[in-house]
């Protein structure tokens, strides 16, 4: 709608400055006056005060009107920006950051404590723990002797990039190390929020349904690898491993899949090998 007179500007050119998000109109209007005279005028918003209409209709021009501003803003743009800053921060310090995600109770913390204990003489690992409430998980991690901070999201159902940014200031992880970010137990929301990690890892336990990959496809599509945990319980549960893998590969054909038990240690060597190789590749990438 025309800012001054309320006539439609659909046919007019709209110039949008994508840097400021502001839209400028340059109107060319045709009015038909009550006596049948047709007049054409043009103006832009900033000329209103000097703009003189030579016809009576100017007096009934709308005083309040809407101006459309083209934004084209990514709703998660701010999060993505902070995530990119985190990514640069990690890169500069040669820190490999992984974002571990799963539903509640899949065994993230157990896998993490086992991994830290098994690898602590080879790889310096620190941890950011995400939970809605309590510092229980951080305490478990602390017992392994590694650096850890806990982020409680309160009502929030996922970690976001700014939480990680603040967490990093507290944690101050060492140069040339691995940072494990244990996200809030949830297979939906964490998939949407980039934290600045190098890779997302989804953990699925055999006590859950084997169709989780197709039930929560966003999560499984966003993740570079899937760790199937608690495989020591397979004799006691109805879980079709092969079908689960098929589902996962249907959603994410590139996905790497490991089967492990953090209790018995079965399969952990493949996960450790992947982690070590990832660190090596990442380091090479940094130095070249």
């Amino acid at each position, binding site marked *: 709608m025309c800012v001054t007179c309320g006539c439609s500007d659909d046919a007019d050119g709209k110039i949008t400055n994508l840097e400021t998000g502001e839209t400028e109109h340059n109107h060319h209007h045709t009015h038909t006056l009550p006596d049948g005279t047709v007049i054409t005028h043009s103006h832009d918003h900033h000329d209103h005060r000097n703009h003189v209409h030579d016809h009576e209709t100017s007096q009934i021009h709308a005083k*309040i009107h809407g101006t459309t501003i083209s934004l084209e803003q*990514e*709703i998660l743009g701010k999060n993505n920006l902070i995530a990119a800053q985190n990514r640069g921060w990690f890169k500069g310090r040669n820190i490999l950051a992984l974002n571990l995600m799963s539903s509640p109770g899949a065994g993230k913390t157990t896998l993490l404590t086992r991994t830290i204990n098994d690898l602590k003489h080879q790889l310096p690992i620190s941890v950011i723990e995400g939970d809605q409430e309590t510092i229980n998980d951080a305490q478990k991690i602390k017992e392994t002797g590694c650096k850890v901070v806990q982020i409680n999201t309160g009502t929030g159902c996922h970690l976001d990039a700014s939480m990680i940014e603040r967490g990093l200031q507290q944690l101050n992880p060492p140069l040339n190390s691995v940072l494990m970010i244990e996200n809030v137990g949830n297979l939906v929301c964490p998939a949407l929020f980039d934290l600045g990690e190098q890779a997302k890892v989804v953990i699925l336990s055999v006590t859950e349904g084997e169709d989780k990959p197709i039930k929560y496809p*966003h999560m499984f599509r966003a993740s570079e690898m899937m760790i199937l945990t608690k495989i020591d319980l397979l004799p006691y549960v109805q879980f079709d491993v092969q079908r689960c893998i098929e589902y996962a590969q249907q959603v994410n054909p590139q996905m790497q899949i490991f089967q492990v038990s953090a209790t018995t240690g079965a399969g952990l060597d493949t996960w450790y090998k992947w982690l070590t190789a990832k660190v090596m590749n990442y380091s090479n990438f940094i130095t070249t």
Partner: protein
Amino acid sequence: MHELGITQNIVAIVNEYAQGAKVQRVVVEIGKLSAIMPEAINFCFDICTQGTFLEGATLEIIEIPGLARCRQCGAEIAIDKPFGICQCGSVHLDILTGEELKIKEIEVEEVCV
């Protein structure tokens, strides 16, 4: 459940751009593969806008359908979830549209002198 946070983001971004002007209309684009429920955004919008320049504004949601291209045969196929199988049998799909999450435009009230 994350729609509340997403809606808060929408309100914060629009508030910033409106620069004190009353907002009448907000147009957002939500892809059908984006894991965001438009109904939930609508539900949260009225609550999140209370006491802001957006209070009373109408929310228009443009839903963008999912489209993917098969890496194997190059065919473009419509998808309603973020994965699928091409007629050629391949599951290697590149998503072209449907993941949008964007504020397209806003309409603010301006008083003419």
